[in-house]
Protein backbone atom coordinates (compact mmCIF):
# COMPACT_ATOMS: atom_id res chain seq x y z
CA UNK A 1 0.00 0.00 0.00
CA UNK A 2 2.93 2.32 -0.59
CA UNK A 3 3.40 4.24 -3.80
CA UNK A 4 6.32 3.32 -6.06
CA UNK A 5 9.17 5.83 -6.32
CA UNK A 6 8.72 8.80 -8.61
CA UNK A 7 10.19 12.24 -9.12
CA UNK A 8 8.19 15.34 -8.43
CA UNK A 9 7.92 18.77 -9.99
CA UNK A 10 5.79 21.67 -8.78
CA UNK A 11 5.64 24.28 -11.56
CA UNK A 12 4.14 27.66 -10.70
CA UNK A 13 2.82 28.51 -14.16
CA UNK A 14 0.78 26.79 -16.83
CA UNK A 15 3.63 27.35 -19.30
CA UNK A 16 5.99 25.62 -16.88
CA UNK A 17 3.63 22.67 -16.48
CA UNK A 18 3.19 22.31 -20.26
CA UNK A 19 6.96 22.45 -20.76
CA UNK A 20 7.49 19.77 -18.11
CA UNK A 21 4.81 17.63 -19.72
CA UNK A 22 6.47 18.03 -23.13
CA UNK A 23 9.87 17.19 -21.68
CA UNK A 24 8.87 14.07 -19.77
CA UNK A 25 6.24 12.71 -22.15
CA UNK A 26 4.65 9.45 -21.18
CA UNK A 27 6.70 9.11 -18.00
CA UNK A 28 4.84 12.10 -16.55
CA UNK A 29 1.53 12.14 -14.79
CA UNK A 30 -0.29 15.30 -13.72
CA UNK A 31 -1.48 15.47 -10.13
CA UNK A 32 -4.37 17.77 -9.24
CA UNK A 33 -6.26 16.91 -6.03
CA UNK A 34 -4.77 13.43 -6.04
CA UNK A 35 -7.89 11.81 -4.63
CA UNK A 36 -8.04 9.21 -7.40
CA UNK A 37 -4.39 9.30 -8.46
CA UNK A 38 -2.82 8.71 -5.03
CA UNK A 39 -5.00 5.65 -4.32
CA UNK A 40 -3.93 4.31 -7.73
CA UNK A 41 -0.29 4.98 -6.81
CA UNK A 42 -0.66 3.43 -3.35
CA UNK A 43 -2.24 0.35 -4.92
CA UNK A 44 0.56 0.38 -7.51
CA UNK A 45 -1.85 0.45 -10.40
CA UNK A 46 0.30 3.25 -11.80
CA UNK A 47 4.04 3.82 -11.78
CA UNK A 48 4.80 7.21 -13.33
CA UNK A 49 8.39 8.37 -13.58
CA UNK A 50 7.48 11.85 -12.47
CA UNK A 51 4.49 13.69 -11.04
CA UNK A 52 3.81 17.22 -12.20
CA UNK A 53 1.85 18.96 -9.46
CA UNK A 54 -0.72 21.53 -10.61
CA UNK A 55 -1.53 22.82 -7.12
CA UNK A 56 0.85 25.76 -7.27
CA UNK A 57 -0.51 27.22 -10.52
CA UNK A 58 -2.63 30.29 -9.84
CA UNK A 59 -3.95 30.44 -13.43
CA UNK A 60 -5.85 27.21 -12.88
CA UNK A 61 -7.75 28.44 -9.85
CA UNK A 62 -10.77 30.60 -9.30
CA UNK A 63 -14.49 30.78 -9.94
CA UNK A 64 -15.85 33.75 -11.85
CA UNK A 65 -18.71 34.90 -14.03
CA UNK A 66 -17.64 36.23 -17.43
CA UNK A 67 -20.24 37.53 -19.91
CA UNK A 68 -22.87 35.69 -17.93
CA UNK A 69 -21.00 32.39 -18.22
CA UNK A 70 -19.66 30.61 -15.19
CA UNK A 71 -15.93 29.97 -15.49
CA UNK A 72 -14.35 27.38 -13.24
CA UNK A 73 -10.59 27.05 -13.08
CA UNK A 74 -9.70 23.37 -13.45
CA UNK A 75 -8.13 23.37 -9.97
CA UNK A 76 -11.38 24.47 -8.32
CA UNK A 77 -11.84 22.12 -5.41
CA UNK A 78 -15.03 20.18 -4.76
CA UNK A 79 -15.47 22.01 -1.49
CA UNK A 80 -15.59 25.31 -3.38
CA UNK A 81 -18.42 23.98 -5.54
CA UNK A 82 -20.19 23.12 -2.32
CA UNK A 83 -19.71 26.48 -0.61
CA UNK A 84 -19.53 29.08 -3.38
CA UNK A 85 -22.59 31.38 -3.58
CA UNK A 86 -21.65 32.14 -7.20
CA UNK A 87 -21.98 28.47 -8.11
CA UNK A 88 -25.20 28.08 -6.17
CA UNK A 89 -26.62 30.97 -8.16
CA UNK A 90 -25.30 30.12 -11.63
CA UNK A 91 -25.11 26.33 -11.53
CA UNK A 92 -27.20 25.02 -8.62
CA UNK A 93 -27.01 21.57 -10.22
CA UNK A 94 -23.27 21.45 -9.42
CA UNK A 95 -23.79 22.60 -5.83
CA UNK A 96 -26.35 19.83 -5.36
CA UNK A 97 -24.38 17.10 -7.12
CA UNK A 98 -21.11 17.75 -5.34
CA UNK A 99 -22.53 16.60 -2.01
CA UNK A 100 -22.77 13.13 -3.52
CA UNK A 101 -19.07 13.06 -4.42
CA UNK A 102 -17.15 10.99 -1.86
CA UNK A 103 -16.80 12.47 1.63
CA UNK A 104 -15.94 15.85 3.16
CA UNK A 105 -12.24 15.07 3.67
CA UNK A 106 -11.96 14.02 0.01
CA UNK A 107 -13.90 17.01 -1.28
CA UNK A 108 -11.48 19.43 0.39
CA UNK A 109 -8.65 18.15 -1.85
CA UNK A 110 -10.39 16.82 -4.94
CA UNK A 111 -10.60 19.14 -7.93
CA UNK A 112 -13.13 19.50 -10.69
CA UNK A 113 -10.44 19.26 -13.39
CA UNK A 114 -8.93 16.12 -11.90
CA UNK A 115 -12.34 14.55 -11.61
CA UNK A 116 -13.28 15.32 -15.22
CA UNK A 117 -9.95 14.13 -16.66
CA UNK A 118 -10.12 10.92 -14.63
CA UNK A 119 -13.44 10.26 -16.42
CA UNK A 120 -14.74 7.58 -14.13
CA UNK A 121 -18.01 6.41 -15.70
CA UNK A 122 -19.65 6.36 -12.25
CA UNK A 123 -18.62 9.92 -11.48
CA UNK A 124 -21.20 12.66 -10.96
CA UNK A 125 -19.46 15.74 -12.38
CA UNK A 126 -18.91 14.54 -15.97
CA UNK A 127 -22.66 13.87 -16.29
CA UNK A 128 -23.44 17.29 -14.80
CA UNK A 129 -21.13 19.00 -17.29
CA UNK A 130 -22.79 17.22 -20.21
CA UNK A 131 -26.24 18.13 -18.86
CA UNK A 132 -25.20 21.77 -18.48
CA UNK A 133 -23.67 21.91 -21.97
CA UNK A 134 -20.30 22.95 -20.55
CA UNK A 135 -17.18 23.63 -22.62
CA UNK A 136 -13.68 22.62 -21.60
CA UNK A 137 -10.55 24.60 -22.42
CA UNK A 138 -7.52 22.42 -23.10
CA UNK A 139 -4.07 23.97 -23.29
CA UNK A 140 -1.33 22.27 -25.29
CA UNK A 141 2.00 23.06 -26.90
CA UNK A 142 0.21 24.71 -29.85
CA UNK A 143 -2.14 26.82 -27.79
CA UNK A 144 -5.68 26.35 -26.57
CA UNK A 145 -8.69 24.53 -27.92
CA UNK A 146 -12.25 24.29 -26.65
CA UNK A 147 -14.20 21.06 -26.54
CA UNK A 148 -17.85 20.54 -25.61
CA UNK A 149 -18.31 18.29 -22.59
CA UNK A 150 -20.20 15.61 -24.53
CA UNK A 151 -17.30 15.24 -27.00
CA UNK A 152 -14.67 15.19 -24.23
CA UNK A 153 -15.72 11.91 -22.64
CA UNK A 154 -14.76 9.01 -24.91
CA UNK A 155 -14.97 5.90 -22.79
CA UNK A 156 -14.07 4.31 -19.47
CA UNK A 157 -11.31 6.59 -18.05
CA UNK A 158 -10.84 7.84 -21.60
CA UNK A 159 -11.10 11.47 -22.74
CA UNK A 160 -10.22 13.73 -25.64
CA UNK A 161 -7.33 15.21 -23.63
CA UNK A 162 -4.03 14.67 -25.44
CA UNK A 163 -0.96 13.41 -23.56
CA UNK A 164 0.64 16.84 -23.98
CA UNK A 165 -2.45 18.81 -22.90
CA UNK A 166 -3.82 20.19 -19.65
CA UNK A 167 -7.47 20.97 -18.90
CA UNK A 168 -7.36 24.58 -17.71
CA UNK A 169 -10.95 25.73 -17.33
CA UNK A 170 -14.58 24.75 -17.58
CA UNK A 171 -17.19 27.14 -18.88
CA UNK A 172 -20.83 26.64 -18.03
CA UNK A 173 -23.13 28.64 -20.32
CA UNK A 174 -25.65 30.94 -18.76
CA UNK A 175 -28.96 29.23 -18.12
CA UNK A 176 -32.30 30.70 -19.16
CA UNK A 177 -34.39 31.97 -16.27
CA UNK A 178 -36.78 29.03 -16.54
CA UNK A 179 -34.04 26.41 -16.46
CA UNK A 180 -34.74 23.64 -13.98
CA UNK A 181 -32.56 20.81 -12.83
CA UNK A 182 -32.74 17.54 -10.98
CA UNK A 183 -30.01 15.32 -9.61
CA UNK A 184 -30.49 11.86 -8.17
CA UNK A 185 -28.15 9.05 -7.36
CA UNK A 186 -28.56 5.61 -5.87
CA UNK A 187 -25.67 4.23 -3.85
CA UNK A 188 -25.51 1.61 -1.14
CA UNK A 189 -23.82 3.99 1.29
CA UNK A 190 -23.44 7.74 1.38
CA UNK A 191 -20.38 8.75 -0.63
CA UNK A 192 -20.00 5.41 -2.39
CA UNK A 193 -19.77 5.22 -6.15
CA UNK A 194 -23.21 5.41 -7.69
CA UNK A 195 -25.04 2.26 -8.67
CA UNK A 196 -26.67 4.58 -11.15
CA UNK A 197 -27.35 8.29 -11.23
CA UNK A 198 -28.99 11.02 -13.27
CA UNK A 199 -28.22 14.64 -13.79
CA UNK A 200 -30.73 16.54 -15.87
CA UNK A 201 -31.82 19.96 -16.98
CA UNK A 202 -35.01 21.12 -18.64
CA UNK A 203 -37.07 24.17 -19.39
CA UNK A 204 -40.83 24.51 -19.21
CA UNK A 205 -42.74 26.46 -21.80
CA UNK A 206 -45.98 26.88 -19.87
CA UNK A 207 -46.89 23.27 -19.13
CA UNK A 208 -44.95 21.96 -22.14
CA UNK A 209 -41.58 20.39 -21.51
CA UNK A 210 -38.69 21.72 -23.58
CA UNK A 211 -35.03 20.92 -23.79
CA UNK A 212 -35.12 18.04 -21.34
CA UNK A 213 -31.57 16.73 -21.18
CA UNK A 214 -31.26 13.63 -18.99
CA UNK A 215 -27.66 12.47 -18.56
CA UNK A 216 -26.93 9.24 -16.72
CA UNK A 217 -23.78 8.11 -14.97
CA UNK A 218 -22.77 4.55 -14.06
CA UNK A 219 -25.02 3.52 -16.94
CA UNK A 220 -22.45 3.13 -19.73
CA UNK A 221 -18.77 3.80 -20.50
CA UNK A 222 -19.17 7.59 -20.18
CA UNK A 223 -21.95 10.05 -19.38
CA UNK A 224 -24.95 8.76 -21.31
CA UNK A 225 -27.36 11.30 -22.82
CA UNK A 226 -30.83 9.75 -22.91
CA UNK A 227 -31.99 11.22 -26.23
CA UNK A 228 -34.68 8.64 -26.88
CA UNK A 229 -36.27 9.15 -23.49
CA UNK A 230 -36.02 12.94 -23.83
CA UNK A 231 -37.69 12.93 -27.25
CA UNK A 232 -40.76 11.24 -25.78
CA UNK A 233 -41.28 14.17 -23.41
CA UNK A 234 -39.90 17.19 -25.23
CA UNK A 235 -42.60 19.34 -26.78
CA UNK A 236 -45.32 17.66 -24.76
CA UNK A 237 -47.11 18.13 -21.50
CA UNK A 238 -45.59 15.55 -19.14
CA UNK A 239 -48.09 12.99 -17.91
CA UNK A 240 -47.55 9.80 -15.95
CA UNK A 241 -48.14 7.73 -19.09
CA UNK A 242 -45.62 9.72 -21.11
CA UNK A 243 -43.02 9.54 -18.36
CA UNK A 244 -43.55 5.79 -18.27
CA UNK A 245 -43.06 5.59 -22.04
CA UNK A 246 -39.94 7.73 -21.80
CA UNK A 247 -38.56 5.52 -19.05
CA UNK A 248 -39.18 2.47 -21.25
CA UNK A 249 -37.14 4.13 -24.02
CA UNK A 250 -34.07 4.23 -21.74
CA UNK A 251 -33.21 0.73 -22.95
CA UNK A 252 -32.17 2.40 -26.23
CA UNK A 253 -30.13 5.08 -24.49
CA UNK A 254 -28.11 3.27 -21.85
CA UNK A 255 -25.58 0.46 -22.01
CA UNK A 256 -24.78 -0.41 -18.42
CA UNK A 257 -22.58 -3.31 -17.42
CA UNK A 258 -23.14 -5.63 -14.54
CA UNK A 259 -20.59 -5.92 -11.75
CA UNK A 260 -20.25 -7.55 -8.35
CA UNK A 261 -22.79 -5.19 -6.81
CA UNK A 262 -25.54 -5.14 -9.36
CA UNK A 263 -26.52 -6.66 -12.70
CA UNK A 264 -26.93 -4.68 -15.91
CA UNK A 265 -30.62 -5.51 -15.85
CA UNK A 266 -31.07 -4.06 -12.37
CA UNK A 267 -29.12 -0.96 -13.40
CA UNK A 268 -31.59 -0.30 -16.21
CA UNK A 269 -34.47 -0.87 -13.81
CA UNK A 270 -33.00 1.59 -11.30
CA UNK A 271 -32.25 4.08 -14.08
CA UNK A 272 -35.96 4.03 -14.92
CA UNK A 273 -36.86 4.55 -11.27
CA UNK A 274 -34.63 7.59 -10.87
CA UNK A 275 -35.63 8.94 -14.27
CA UNK A 276 -39.27 9.01 -13.17
CA UNK A 277 -38.29 10.62 -9.89
CA UNK A 278 -36.17 13.19 -11.68
CA UNK A 279 -38.97 14.22 -14.03
CA UNK A 280 -41.40 14.42 -11.09
CA UNK A 281 -38.89 16.70 -9.38
CA UNK A 282 -38.45 18.84 -12.50
CA UNK A 283 -42.17 19.50 -12.81
CA UNK A 284 -43.63 19.29 -9.32
CA UNK A 285 -46.70 21.13 -10.60
CA UNK A 286 -47.56 18.15 -12.82
CA UNK A 287 -48.15 15.99 -9.75
CA UNK A 288 -46.23 13.05 -11.18
CA UNK A 289 -45.17 11.69 -7.78
CA UNK A 290 -47.45 8.84 -7.05
CA UNK A 291 -48.44 5.28 -7.76
CA UNK A 292 -46.50 5.10 -11.03
CA UNK A 293 -43.41 5.22 -8.84
CA UNK A 294 -43.84 1.61 -7.74
CA UNK A 295 -44.94 0.20 -11.07
CA UNK A 296 -42.01 -1.00 -13.11
Amino acid sequence: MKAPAFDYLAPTSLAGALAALAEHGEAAKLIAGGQSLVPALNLRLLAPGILIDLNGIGELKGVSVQNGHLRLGAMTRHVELERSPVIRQHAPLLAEAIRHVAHPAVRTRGTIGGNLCHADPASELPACMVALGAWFTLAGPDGERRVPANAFFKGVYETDLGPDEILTAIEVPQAGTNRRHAFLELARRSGDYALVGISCTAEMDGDIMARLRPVFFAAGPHPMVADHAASVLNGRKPTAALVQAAAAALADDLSPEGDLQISAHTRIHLARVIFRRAVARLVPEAGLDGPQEVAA
Partner: protein
Amino acid sequence: MTPRPLSFMVNGETVRLLVDPRRHLGDVLREDLGLTGTHLGCEHGVCGACTIRLDGEIVRSCLTLAVQCEGARVETIEGLSDSGEVADLQEAFRNRNALQCGYCTPGMIVTAQDLLLRHPEPTREEIREHLSGNYCRCTGYHAIVDAVAATAAGRTAKGSAAA
Protein backbone atom coordinates in the same frame (compact mmCIF):
# COMPACT_ATOMS: atom_id res chain seq x y z
CA MET B 1 13.20 9.71 -6.45
CA THR B 2 15.41 12.53 -5.25
CA PRO B 3 14.40 13.49 -1.71
CA ARG B 4 13.09 17.02 -1.47
CA PRO B 5 13.42 19.51 1.34
CA LEU B 6 10.09 20.14 3.05
CA SER B 7 9.29 22.88 5.51
CA PHE B 8 5.87 23.02 7.11
CA MET B 9 4.08 23.69 10.36
CA VAL B 10 2.94 20.72 12.40
CA ASN B 11 0.82 21.38 15.48
CA GLY B 12 2.26 24.87 15.73
CA GLU B 13 5.91 23.90 15.32
CA THR B 14 7.99 24.45 12.20
CA VAL B 15 9.39 21.19 10.87
CA ARG B 16 12.10 20.82 8.26
CA LEU B 17 13.03 17.50 6.73
CA LEU B 18 13.96 15.71 3.55
CA VAL B 19 11.26 13.49 2.10
CA ASP B 20 10.94 11.15 -0.83
CA PRO B 21 8.15 12.36 -3.14
CA ARG B 22 6.48 8.94 -2.98
CA ARG B 23 5.76 9.21 0.75
CA HIS B 24 2.34 10.30 1.90
CA LEU B 25 1.79 12.70 4.74
CA GLY B 26 0.45 10.00 7.09
CA ASP B 27 3.70 8.05 6.91
CA VAL B 28 5.83 11.14 7.45
CA LEU B 29 3.77 12.20 10.47
CA ARG B 30 4.01 8.75 12.00
CA GLU B 31 7.49 7.62 11.07
CA ASP B 32 9.53 10.81 10.87
CA LEU B 33 7.74 12.89 13.48
CA GLY B 34 6.54 10.13 15.82
CA LEU B 35 2.95 11.43 15.68
CA THR B 36 1.35 8.00 15.76
CA GLY B 37 -2.10 9.29 16.69
CA THR B 38 -2.80 9.54 12.97
CA HIS B 39 -3.80 5.99 12.11
CA LEU B 40 -3.41 4.33 8.74
CA GLY B 41 -6.16 1.90 7.85
CA CYS B 42 -6.69 1.37 4.16
CA GLU B 43 -4.19 3.80 2.64
CA HIS B 44 -6.42 4.39 -0.33
CA GLY B 45 -8.81 6.96 0.99
CA VAL B 46 -11.70 4.78 2.04
CA CYS B 47 -11.55 4.37 5.82
CA GLY B 48 -10.93 7.88 7.17
CA ALA B 49 -8.66 6.76 10.05
CA CYS B 50 -5.83 9.00 8.81
CA THR B 51 -7.90 12.21 8.70
CA ILE B 52 -5.95 15.31 9.73
CA ARG B 53 -6.36 19.05 9.26
CA LEU B 54 -4.41 20.75 6.49
CA ASP B 55 -4.65 24.54 6.38
CA GLY B 56 -7.83 24.34 8.41
CA GLU B 57 -9.60 21.73 6.25
CA ILE B 58 -9.83 18.01 6.92
CA VAL B 59 -8.01 15.77 4.45
CA ARG B 60 -6.93 12.16 4.14
CA SER B 61 -3.25 12.14 5.06
CA CYS B 62 -2.83 8.91 3.04
CA LEU B 63 -3.96 10.73 -0.11
CA THR B 64 -1.79 13.79 0.40
CA LEU B 65 1.84 13.56 -0.58
CA ALA B 66 4.12 15.03 2.05
CA VAL B 67 5.98 17.07 -0.59
CA GLN B 68 2.70 18.81 -1.37
CA CYS B 69 2.62 20.28 2.14
CA GLU B 70 5.40 22.81 1.64
CA GLY B 71 4.48 25.87 3.68
CA ALA B 72 1.26 24.28 4.91
CA ARG B 73 -0.19 24.16 8.40
CA VAL B 74 -0.91 20.61 9.56
CA GLU B 75 -2.85 19.72 12.70
CA THR B 76 -3.07 16.17 13.99
CA ILE B 77 -5.04 14.59 16.82
CA GLU B 78 -2.03 15.27 19.09
CA GLY B 79 -2.26 18.99 18.39
CA LEU B 80 -6.02 19.11 18.82
CA SER B 81 -5.73 17.15 22.08
CA ASP B 82 -2.91 19.20 23.57
CA SER B 83 -4.64 22.50 22.87
CA GLY B 84 -7.82 21.27 24.54
CA GLU B 85 -9.81 22.03 21.40
CA VAL B 86 -11.46 18.63 21.35
CA ALA B 87 -11.40 17.84 25.09
CA ASP B 88 -15.20 17.84 25.33
CA LEU B 89 -15.55 15.58 22.28
CA GLN B 90 -13.05 13.16 23.74
CA GLU B 91 -14.89 13.14 27.04
CA ALA B 92 -18.19 12.55 25.26
CA PHE B 93 -16.66 9.61 23.36
CA ARG B 94 -15.47 8.14 26.66
CA ASN B 95 -18.79 8.76 28.43
CA ARG B 96 -20.84 7.26 25.65
CA ASN B 97 -18.39 4.38 25.10
CA ALA B 98 -18.14 5.49 21.48
CA LEU B 99 -15.01 3.43 20.90
CA GLN B 100 -13.82 -0.06 21.53
CA CYS B 101 -10.49 -0.66 19.84
CA GLY B 102 -10.02 3.06 19.24
CA TYR B 103 -8.37 2.71 15.86
CA CYS B 104 -10.88 4.93 14.08
CA THR B 105 -11.21 7.41 16.96
CA PRO B 106 -8.60 10.04 16.02
CA GLY B 107 -10.10 10.30 12.53
CA MET B 108 -13.60 10.40 14.00
CA ILE B 109 -12.69 13.19 16.42
CA VAL B 110 -10.94 15.29 13.77
CA THR B 111 -13.89 14.86 11.38
CA ALA B 112 -16.53 15.51 14.06
CA GLN B 113 -14.72 18.65 15.19
CA ASP B 114 -14.70 19.87 11.58
CA LEU B 115 -18.48 19.46 11.46
CA LEU B 116 -19.05 21.20 14.80
CA LEU B 117 -16.90 24.16 13.79
CA ARG B 118 -18.96 24.63 10.63
CA HIS B 119 -22.38 23.57 11.91
CA PRO B 120 -22.58 24.00 15.68
CA GLU B 121 -26.06 22.47 15.84
CA PRO B 122 -26.11 19.56 13.40
CA THR B 123 -28.97 17.10 13.14
CA ARG B 124 -28.21 13.40 13.64
CA GLU B 125 -28.59 13.00 9.90
CA GLU B 126 -25.98 15.69 9.28
CA ILE B 127 -23.63 14.08 11.79
CA ARG B 128 -23.99 10.73 10.02
CA GLU B 129 -23.43 12.34 6.64
CA HIS B 130 -20.29 14.16 7.76
CA LEU B 131 -18.88 11.02 9.37
CA SER B 132 -19.87 8.82 6.43
CA GLY B 133 -16.28 8.65 5.22
CA ASN B 134 -14.99 7.36 8.56
CA TYR B 135 -15.31 3.66 9.19
CA CYS B 136 -15.69 2.09 12.60
CA ARG B 137 -15.55 -1.68 12.64
CA CYS B 138 -16.39 -2.32 16.30
CA THR B 139 -19.02 -0.19 17.97
CA GLY B 140 -21.34 0.61 15.13
CA TYR B 141 -22.04 4.26 14.71
CA HIS B 142 -24.90 4.93 17.09
CA ALA B 143 -22.75 5.73 20.12
CA ILE B 144 -20.42 7.87 18.01
CA VAL B 145 -23.33 9.93 16.70
CA ASP B 146 -24.61 10.21 20.29
CA ALA B 147 -21.24 11.51 21.47
CA VAL B 148 -21.05 14.12 18.72
CA ALA B 149 -24.65 15.21 19.33
CA ALA B 150 -23.98 15.47 23.08
CA THR B 151 -20.90 17.59 22.44
CA ALA B 152 -22.85 19.87 20.13
CA ALA B 153 -25.58 20.26 22.75
CA GLY B 154 -23.00 20.93 25.46
CA ARG B 155 -21.22 23.59 23.43
CA THR B 156 -24.48 25.27 22.44
CA ALA B 157 -25.65 25.35 26.08
CA LYS B 158 -22.29 26.76 27.16
CA GLY B 159 -22.44 29.35 24.38
CA SER B 160 -25.89 30.58 25.35
CA ALA B 161 -25.01 30.58 29.08
CA ALA B 162 -22.02 32.79 28.31
CA ALA B 163 -24.09 35.13 26.16
